[in-house]
């Protein structure tokens, strides 16, 4: 094995305990002193690959060579000893500790450092920061620091452990544009000091800006490797998305009606208090499916939550049937014709410990038709209502009193859809409606969505699954960093274009024409 390589990974395969094949024989190599981009869609296997490299996961098959030597990491400390450290998307800092304490935490003997050792350690950290050209307030409580600064603490923590290979999993996802700029400067400084860096991202621009080489993964396989100076956005997008033909569903042309939902100048904050949606306007019409494509984490979740009453609207208007509904709670919205199939059915869409009956009335449990004397819930009536839903949606279930967690994922999702579609909605918001489902459940739910559209309902579909977007949508919007990169009809788009827009390349955005009403 070549010794000029910092790392070489050969035919790495990973099968998760639940049977998911995340990596199907991936090769990867990292040179010394380079910034190496790892690019791919959600679920391509980037995190899995790097977790294996950092000792957090063990590969099912494959070999890892560090500076030409075969290694077999059992845990992250093993990897650290070989000079490999990873900064995860979710930091592992103790919020009440100072930055310095967090940096030293976990070092051998760090629990009882003498004052002398402490000041020595501080001097070393300060020296490191000077050399790297970045700094953090060492004595501030970590929770009081901005996310970008916390991230730097994580990086310093790794450097303090003398890693030569630094793995960063989607580090820019939590940063503001200014922070990203500084962050890239830091990365270049570190590289020039001889460190090797693996940068995971799905943003084409970042790859082009800061990396020296790129490896692209697609569905657990290598999709290409290229030196960054030779790469163009188009080449990268094609590698990331692939060329395969898109299957299509038989859809009748429908008469697109008036706008059912109108969003104008919407501004929404994410959980960190940053603006994740800025000045977004669009409409969904009766009899159409508007599909929102995009890599996850670009504001789709926040958009759906704002529309469905689960997240405050900072600014702007959302109207259903010409009534402004911004700021109303979910129950009011359901009364005005909203149905919501949430992204996370197990956390939001249902209560797993509740029975099928109980879940079948979540959100409509206050409706008169289910109540009798003294506000008693008529469980008999609810039960037969549940059976109706079970029959109509061919849900496999033996007893309406069984807990929802006893259903398979597909049947759980069918139950959520059945309940929501039964509300006689005028607007259906479906977020990742078929994620993780088997083929038959997927097909069934997609058919139902098309059926709703044929009935003249407005459907907003948010999905990270491009195949689904192309199959179902009458118009497609691509979301990137809280904005639409473009809106177009499916026949005006190809995979390469979509890939570019998903990667944030706006120069080639689709024509803002008829479709962008």
């Amino acid at each position, binding site marked *: 094995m070549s010794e000029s390589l910092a790392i070489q990974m050969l035919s790495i395969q990973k099968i998760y305990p639940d049977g998911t094949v995340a990596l199907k024989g991936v090769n990867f190599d990292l040179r010394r002193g380079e910034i190496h981009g790892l690019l791919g869609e959600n679920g391509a296997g980037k995190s899995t690959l790097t977790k294996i490299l950092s000792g957090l996961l063990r590969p099912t098959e494959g070999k890892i060579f560090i500076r030409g030597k075969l290694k077999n990491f059992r845990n992250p400390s093993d990897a650290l000893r070989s000079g490999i450290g990873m900064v995860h998307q979710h930091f592992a800092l103790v919020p009440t500790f100072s930055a310095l304490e967090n940096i030293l935490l976990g070092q051998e003997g760090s629990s009882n450092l003498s004052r002398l050792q402490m000041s020595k350690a501080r001097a070393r950290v300060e020296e490191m920061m000077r050399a790297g050209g970045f700094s953090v307030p060492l004595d501030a409580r970590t929770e009081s620091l901005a996310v970008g600064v916390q991230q730097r603490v994580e990086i310093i923590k790794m450097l303090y452990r003398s890693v030569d290979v630094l793995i960063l999993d989607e580090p820019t996802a939590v940063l503001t544009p200014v922070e990203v700029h500084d962050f890239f400067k830091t990365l270049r400084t570190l590289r020039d000091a001889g460190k090797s860096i693996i940068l995971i991202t799905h943003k084409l621009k970042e790859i082009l800006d800061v990396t020296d080489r790129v490896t692209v993964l697609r569905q657990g396989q290598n999709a290409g490797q290229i030196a960054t100076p030779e790469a163009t956005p188009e080449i990268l997008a094609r590698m990331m998305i692939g060329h395969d033909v898109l299957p299509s569903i038989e859809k009748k042309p429908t008469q697109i009606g008036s706008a059912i939902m109108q969003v104008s100048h919407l501004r929404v904050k994410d959980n960190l208090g940053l603006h994740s949606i800025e000045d977004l306007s669009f409409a969904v019409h009766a009899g159409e499916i508007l599909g929102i494509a995009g890599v996850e984490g670009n504001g789709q979740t926040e958009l759906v939550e704002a529309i*469905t009453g*689960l997240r405050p609207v900072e600014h702007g208007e959302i109207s259903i049937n010409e009534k402004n509904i911004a700021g109303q*709670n*979910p*129950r*009011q919205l*359901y009364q005005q014709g909203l149905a*919501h199939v*949430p992204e996370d059915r197990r*956390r*939001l*869409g*249902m*209560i*797993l*410990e*509740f029975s099928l009956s*109980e879940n079948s009335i*979540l*959100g409509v*449990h*206050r409706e008169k038709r289910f*109540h009798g004397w*003294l*506000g*008693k*819930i008529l*469980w008999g009536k609810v039960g037969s209502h549940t059976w109706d839903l079970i029959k109509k949606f061919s849900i496999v279930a033996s*007893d309406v*009193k*069984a*807990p929802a967690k*006893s259903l398979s994922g597909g049947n759980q999702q069918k139950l959520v859809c059945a309940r929501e579609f039964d509300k006689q909605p005028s607007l259906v918001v479906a977020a990742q409606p078929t994620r993780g489902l088997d083929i038959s459940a997927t097909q069934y739910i997609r058919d139902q969505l098309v059926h709703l559209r044929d009935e003249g309902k407005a459907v907003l579909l948010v999905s990270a699954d491009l195949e689904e977007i192309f199959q179902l949508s009458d118009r497609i919007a691509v979301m990137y960093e809280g904005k639409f990169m473009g809106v177009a009809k499916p026949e005006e788009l190809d995979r390469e274009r979509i890939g570019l827009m998903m990667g944030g390349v706006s120069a080639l955005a689709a024509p803002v024409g008829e479709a962008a009403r």
Partner: protein
Amino acid sequence: MRTKLWGWFKPLVEGLFAALLGFGIGAVLMLLWKYDPVKAYLALFQGAFGDFGSIGKALSCLLSQGIDACKETGVIYGLYELTNTLTNATPLILTGLTFAIGIRAGLFNIGAEGQVYIGAMAAVAASLFSLPPGLHVLVSILFALIAGALWSLPVALLKATRGVHEVISTIMLNWVGRYLAYYLIATALVDPNRAEKSISIAQSARLLPILPGMDLTASLLVSVLFAGIIYWILWQTALGYEIRAVGLNPDASRYGGIRPTRTMIASFVLGGLAAGLAGATQILGRPPTYALYEDLSNVMNLGFDGIAVALIGRNHPLGAIVAAIFMGGLSAGSNQMQIAAQVPLEMVRVVQGAIILTLAIPELLSIFKIFRRKRG
């Protein structure tokens, strides 16, 4: 169907194993310190329930000959231990409900203790004026219910408006309630003839013993009825549906249009009603005292014991009845353990603790599981 039956059956089986384990640990401890566990447990059981022969005789006598005849011959006293245990259980059922309703809504409501004091005082206060019998009992109970609910409101409002954690505010209010009670018993409610207690409950407001010579009163029925009502609310009404939903999954509840604040306030108030009522049963329906002692000794710790009752009873109203009887028996029997088996009080406490802990563990585990999932 199988799942449903198992749903009822599983806690019983688990409880049985936990109890066996607890008694086993207690036995080992007693052996280590050279006491005879067999003798001790027999005494415990005797003290808690009496013996089956005498219970059977007393019951058949009551059915065939009526109360007076059985009292005449003394056969009726075969029920003495059992009624004692049920008397002990009466307020514990209610304070157990307070904690259970809290947990059902995802709240750690440990405010029953203070609400019991306040409820007991309100029940006493109702005897400051006179009313016809029957009505007076109802009014006294109503006073206690309202007082208990009012004492829970600050907790709910502090949490709703300021985000104050209920563990903090309930502990603080328990202390405020305690000293308020000390103060009022010594002033407005003091018995002019006997400064160590409050005025006695008016005859017209008392719940009288069901059987002569024994402490058990109709308050047990009040308590069981209330548990039934809570059960009905939790599983048959939209409010109960919302309480249970919020406790299991606040995110899905919000998605389902449930307003978490409203639900939380409702569960605190229901809990306050239960604890206030517990104070009332202990004062209106517990001969021979019918008053509140200056040191609160006849209402002290009922609220805290209710936590154990709720945990042993799986935070279920019907489970709370069973668990309260178990706890009532445990405390009634512990006297016998000391007297008949000569086990010192400290050892009795250790054994009790071991049993209660092992019984509470299954529910504690499931609570932690739900809480951890909600965080993660």
